[in-house]
């Protein structure tokens, strides 16, 4: 009657999950500290990412506003003050953000009337700016009649027109192009509102951006390393604290696999919760800091929220990965322990 020795059944993950949940619940205080470690690391990462998004957004926004203001000043320099005067706008294709801002500023100068005409290949207006003074004109000629100035906006191609004869109908022969690329035929009295930065300026800006991104990467890497080491240490503590428990479980027939799963699972759960909390607080922190400095409206309007969402998901994923990476060594250490050794330790 020799009974053969079989292989131990592999337990489903759910069992390890249950035991891990129980472990966290029982040692809530310690688990919370580990959780805080992960949350802090990820909060730091997220605050840096969020700050970057805010800075970029704010810079873009202020740049845009300055650019629109500059375009307006250029125009006014040619036409004189616009208050109470008639203005013509020729739209080709769709407007970009810079042009939209420019139009907003134009309206704030309170011209008596803006005649808005669509010109170019598909000469239809998608939308007119909402303002009492804006009227849709049938064509370029009717818009430009009696105008103190004509502004050409949009990304479409201009039709071949006798600009000179069109301009002669205007009260003031000012033709301003918002884009340098549109001015193919150089009529008399035409101005370009667009500002093209010089090559050196562009290079300098790019170099500065590269330096800044290198600094950021460096700081982020260091902070994440610190997080991994901290969590790893906490997990090791947790393993040493539970030597006896692990040994007992092994004596009762737990597989090394199960012990490993137990610790990885625990770390995973703390990673999920910790990095979610961390990323929310990190993003909030940077948002508030930038909000206080630049105004919440500006920051909220200028930040690319899709980018922020992506960054948040990425940092949560990073947090989970870090938590698991930090647990690999302690979990392996616990799993490899010989039951007798584990039982002998008087921890």
């Amino acid at each position: 009657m020799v009974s053969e020795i079989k292989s131990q059944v592999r337990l489903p993950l759910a069992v390890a999950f249950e035991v891990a949940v129980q472990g966290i619940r029982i040692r809530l205080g310690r688990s919370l500290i580990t959780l805080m470690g992960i949350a802090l690391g990820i909060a730091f990462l997220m605050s840096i990412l969020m700050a970057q998004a805010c800075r970029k957004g704010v810079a873009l926004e202020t740049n845009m506003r300055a650019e629109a203001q500059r375009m307006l000043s250029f125009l006014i320099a040619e036409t004189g003050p616009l208050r109470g005067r008639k203005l013509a706008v020729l739209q080709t294709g769709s407007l970009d953000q810079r042009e939209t801002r420019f139009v907003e500023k134009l309206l704030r100068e309170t011209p008596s009337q803006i005649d808005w005409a669509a010109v170019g290949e598909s000469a239809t207006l998608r939308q007119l700016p909402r303002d009492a003074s804006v009227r849709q004109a049938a064509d370029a000629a009717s818009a430009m009649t009696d105008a103190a100035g004509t502004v050409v906006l949009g990304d479409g191609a201009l039709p071949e027109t006798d600009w000179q004869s069109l301009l002669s109908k205007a009260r003031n022969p000012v033709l301003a192009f918002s884009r340098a690329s549109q001015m193919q035929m150089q009529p008399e009295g035409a101005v370009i509102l667009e500002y093209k930065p010089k090559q050196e300026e562009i290079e300098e800006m790019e170099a500065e951006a590269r330096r800044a991104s290198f600094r950021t990467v460096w700081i982020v890497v260091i902070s994440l390393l610190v997080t991994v080491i901290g969590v790893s240490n906490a997990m090791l503590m947790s393993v040493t604290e539970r030597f006896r428990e692990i040994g007992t479980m092994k004596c009762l027939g737990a597989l090394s696999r199960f012990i490993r799963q137990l610790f990885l699972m625990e770390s995973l759960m703390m990673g999920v919760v910790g990095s979610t909390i961390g990323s929310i607080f990190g993003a909030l922190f940077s948002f508030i800091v930038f909000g206080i400095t630049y105004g919440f409206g500006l920051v909220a309007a200028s930040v690319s929220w899709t980018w922020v969402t992506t960054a948040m998901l990425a940092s949560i994923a990073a947090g989970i990965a870090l938590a698991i990476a930090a647990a690999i060594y302690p979990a392996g250490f616990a799993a490899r322990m010989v039951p007798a050794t584990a039982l002998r330790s008087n921890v």
Partner: protein
Amino acid sequence: MEISDAKFQALFASERKKERRTVIRGVDIKKIYRTGQNETYALRGATLDIFQGEYLSIMGPSGSGKTTLFNMIGGLGKPSSGKVYIDQVDIAQLDANELAWLRCRKIGYIFQTFNLIQVMTCIENVMLPMSFAGLSADEARDKAMYILKLVGLDHRPLHKPAELSGGQQQRCAFARALANSPDIILADEPTANLDTKTGEEMIELLAELRDKLGVTIVTATHDLKMLKRSDRILWIEDGRIVKITTPDEMKIQIHEVR
């Protein structure tokens, strides 16, 4: 604590024949602990046969290697040299999964310090080996409750070990050892930390398990009452087995000493 009813018989499904078959065989087991340069011999070559359905007590002063011998024959550690056979299988040849199966199904351990898992309730402690054996939670709960009743702890299943008295903790540890109806029960000084009443009940239960179901019982003990109930007594000193006696011979020796 009567274990004659059908349910208990069913628990230990295959009734063991009372034949004189070797369950555990140790051949020249040596265990050396190394700490830096120092070598400590815990066992200096122990050879022993443990038979099916016997009650073997291991006697020896502290530090003589009782617990080490226990761990070796229970498959909890690897001997430095020598072989351990359980059911004629060399356990050094087993892989981790088979070893885990052995610890889970074949052997029930009762530790000197109970080693209950502090974060789990009493019944969860008893259910743990069952869930390692693949029992569903409901089955395990039923069975655990039955075993707790058997050891007289069914009134406090949801208490944590820290909320139980020493005797109750030992009952819980006892119940856990019985969880998967093992063939062999290894008990390291099971009555050392107990009050007399619990101790006697435990001894009684162990003896009954042997008598009625042919479970092999190995204990390390100094308890005279326990020695009296055992079939053979193995004396260990300084890592060596010095003699094997019966309880009757022991009585004579005690008289001689005194």
